[in-house]
């Protein structure tokens, strides 16, 4: 059995779907954040698979940019989650309902 690029694309699509579902279903901000990371890594797999299939380096370059940006997002995102958790330990996103309308 030969594993072709399309297998990687299917894995990527599945991971992306799992991440997106998790983000919409789970209510813990930290877990939601992990789901976003899952989606970003699905994108990375997709970029690398296309890059191999097309014999083109741009896709692999893109992955570096995605990784760096994801790291920056984690730094900012976790600091915001910590700020929220300090004020309201064990808060879910449903508890955060000061603002609505």
């Amino acid at each position, binding site marked *: 059995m030969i594993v072709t690029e399309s297998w990687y694309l299917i894995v990527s699509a599945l991971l992306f779907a799992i991440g997106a579902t998790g983000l919409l279903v789970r209510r813990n901000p930290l877990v939601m954040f992990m789901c976003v990371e899952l989606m970003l890594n699905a994108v990375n797999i997709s970029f690398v698979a296309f890059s191999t299939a*097309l014999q083109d380096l*741009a896709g692999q370059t*893109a992955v570096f*940019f995605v990784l760096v*940006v994801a790291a*920056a997002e984690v730094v900012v995102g976790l600091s915001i989650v910590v700020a*929220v958790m300090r004020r309201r330990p064990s808060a879910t996103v449903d508890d955060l309902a*000061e*603002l609505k*309308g």
Partner: protein
Amino acid sequence: MSGTFVTLVAAEIERPSIDWHAIAPELILLGGGALVTVIDLIWLERVRKLIPTLTSLVFLVALIPVITLWADGSGLPRGLWIIDENVPATGVWEGAFVVDNYSLVLKGLFLLSAYVIVLLSTNYMSEGDYYDSEYYQLIAASVLGMLVMSSSRDLISIFVALELVSIPAYLMAAWRKRDLKSNEAGLKYMLMGVFASAILLYGMSLLYGIAGSTLLSDIAAAIDIGESRPVITLGIVFTIIGFGFKVSAVPFHTWAPDTYEGAPTPLTAFLAVASKAAGFVALINVVIVALPTQANVVEPFIWVLAAITMTVGNLIALRQTNLVRMLAYSGVAQAGYMLAPLAVYDGISDRATSAVVTYLVIYAAMNLGAFAVVIIAARKTRSAELSSYGGMFNYAPGLTLAMTIFLFSLAGIPPVGGWWAKFEVFRVLTEGNRTSGIALAVIAAVNSVIAAFYYLNIAKQMWFLPSPDGDNSRIAIPPALLAAVGLTVAATIVSGVLPGVVSDMTDFVNVAAGQ
């Protein structure tokens, strides 16, 4: 084989000379932002009062090369490298970074908006008992992302620029960190923002897979006219959804009202004007440059987005009692008008682009002005509730007049700015007598009437109703806020009375693709 190898080694790598003039605005902003950070780190408290002034100076200095590039229009579009001294401009990291009329108008818009935002922030931040120097440094970083965005013609640089705009904004939305509302605003904005980025990136990876290049012009060349494959459609839809979050198009707008209400008000103005404009710029770049052949997919999708965005935004705005929330929903509705020209861009992409850019410029002036008045009024009333604006004419007639001008402009009533922006949109929509365009124009017209109702309701509150607590003491307006109101009033009136001033700039706007 060995011959090729020898030539490869022997061939000297010719370093192209950098077009410093073309990237001067970005470099000045980068250097200036770093300088402000270092000054703050060295002298700490002693210079804290000066940081806003320094930051706004950086924005104004960065505006100088934008103006000189515009005046020296002969060489446009230009890029990052000078390939050949005799052939000006094209080429450039294969066209990923392009300086053209379009990007220069937008860079000017971003820098001036940022300047006004700093004016709005100065008193708010220094009186708020929160770290303030870092706030200005983050604004500079975010604006740098916007400048890069307007020149980006490549999926990767568009993505990096968009994140450079957004990530500092997540932090600034949660700035009042001991305030639950601000926490919530930041968390919601951050979660929705990174979700949108992930969707956008997935769409971009599909587009890359189809075209074999991240360069927008290569993508355009790789997809044939009317070529329809599920993967192309999926890539386009995901990419547009990703931008839809950034420009707060319905149904991806849910973060906007909460974030706008909870975040510090000057930052709300920043999100509603500059950050939204950056999202539109990215959308225009991708749609006009990369997808001219895919109008059959893009147009219906954006048509639906535009129609529901303006309708839902206006209907929810009708029943808001908090002015900041109302402005948030009104901003959602305005995004619908701005999306509209992109729903009929096929064949008239230059006209559609210039209509959107015109709208962005005028919208920036009138919306920043409205937020400036909200910030000033909140200094006295400590509230953004609609009822607290009662009786304002009695104690602040000038401010009431200014707010009325902004509201008329937002509603699109001549002779102030907004009507020209709407007129341009309608002109593009009805051009070519396409049924879809005319139908959207009708929806937009009905929406303008609905919107006029709630805008004028605010004006009624200020002019005719009594002050709720009978307190008619005057408001002391700090000079920075007065300057902000003055600038935005002038821009709103001039753009409406002399629309030529705006259209002289935006009529030449066309997005250079890069090669």
